[in-house]
């Protein structure tokens, strides 16, 4: 019963957030070329919210490292989506630098986890 209730609650939360994303109307917030790009941006923010949930409530440190890795790849997607409506060419430079730096950070955290050896 408890597991079923939690499943239905999570599904309702996800459906509510997607409905808010689709029908949220501010068209003149940042002079976007079209509203659909703004909705793409909000869907990426929803993905980052899930990653932050896993970082906050991971049972082991390996879960947190996985979530940090996924967050680093998602930021590259943020830079790509931001580069389309604003027309600035340097957002994708930030994306390249962020991808390399996130890779190095994840490798360092994985080596740290390998040498630690905690008992669980």
């Amino acid at each position, binding site marked *: 019963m408890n597991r079923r209730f939690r499943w239905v609650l999570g599904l309702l939360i996800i459906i509510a957030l997607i409905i808010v994303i689709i029908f949220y109307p501010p068209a003149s917030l940042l002079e976007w070329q079209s509203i659909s790009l703004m909705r793409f941006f909000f869907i990426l923010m929803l993905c980052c919210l899930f990653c932050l*949930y896993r970082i906050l409530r991971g049972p082991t440190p390996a879960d947190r490292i996985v979530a940090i890795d996924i967050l680093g*790849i998602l930021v590259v997607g943020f830079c790509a989506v931001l580069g*389309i409506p604003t027309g600035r060419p340097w957002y994708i430079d930030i994306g390249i630098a962020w991808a390399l730096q996130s890779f190095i950070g994840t*490798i360092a955290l994985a080596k740290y*986890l390998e040498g630690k050896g905690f008992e669980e």
Partner: protein
Amino acid sequence: MEIIAYIFIAVGLMFDLFGCIGLVRLPDVYNRLQASTKCVTLGTCSILFGLFLFRGFTAPGIKALLCIVFIILTAPVSAHAIARGAHISGVRLWDKSVCDKYEEDKR
């Protein structure tokens, strides 16, 4: 061409969303890693390819292709390193897991 780019970006965002739902939903470190890394890598590569279709062969478009190459090269390597580190540091598998080949190989 812009419509094809929008379709690529929308498909990539759907892959991202499903990968992150798998990151929240699945029961184990290895399951979460397996679901989220593949989905998010393919989704972000699809978003960058959509940006390339928007811009064409200008400076941001070619940088987007370069970024696709970087992500495809680095994401599986980091996922493999995380899985190996987690297994060595003693994170247990899920109760209903069937087999553990790495544990058999280490003996």
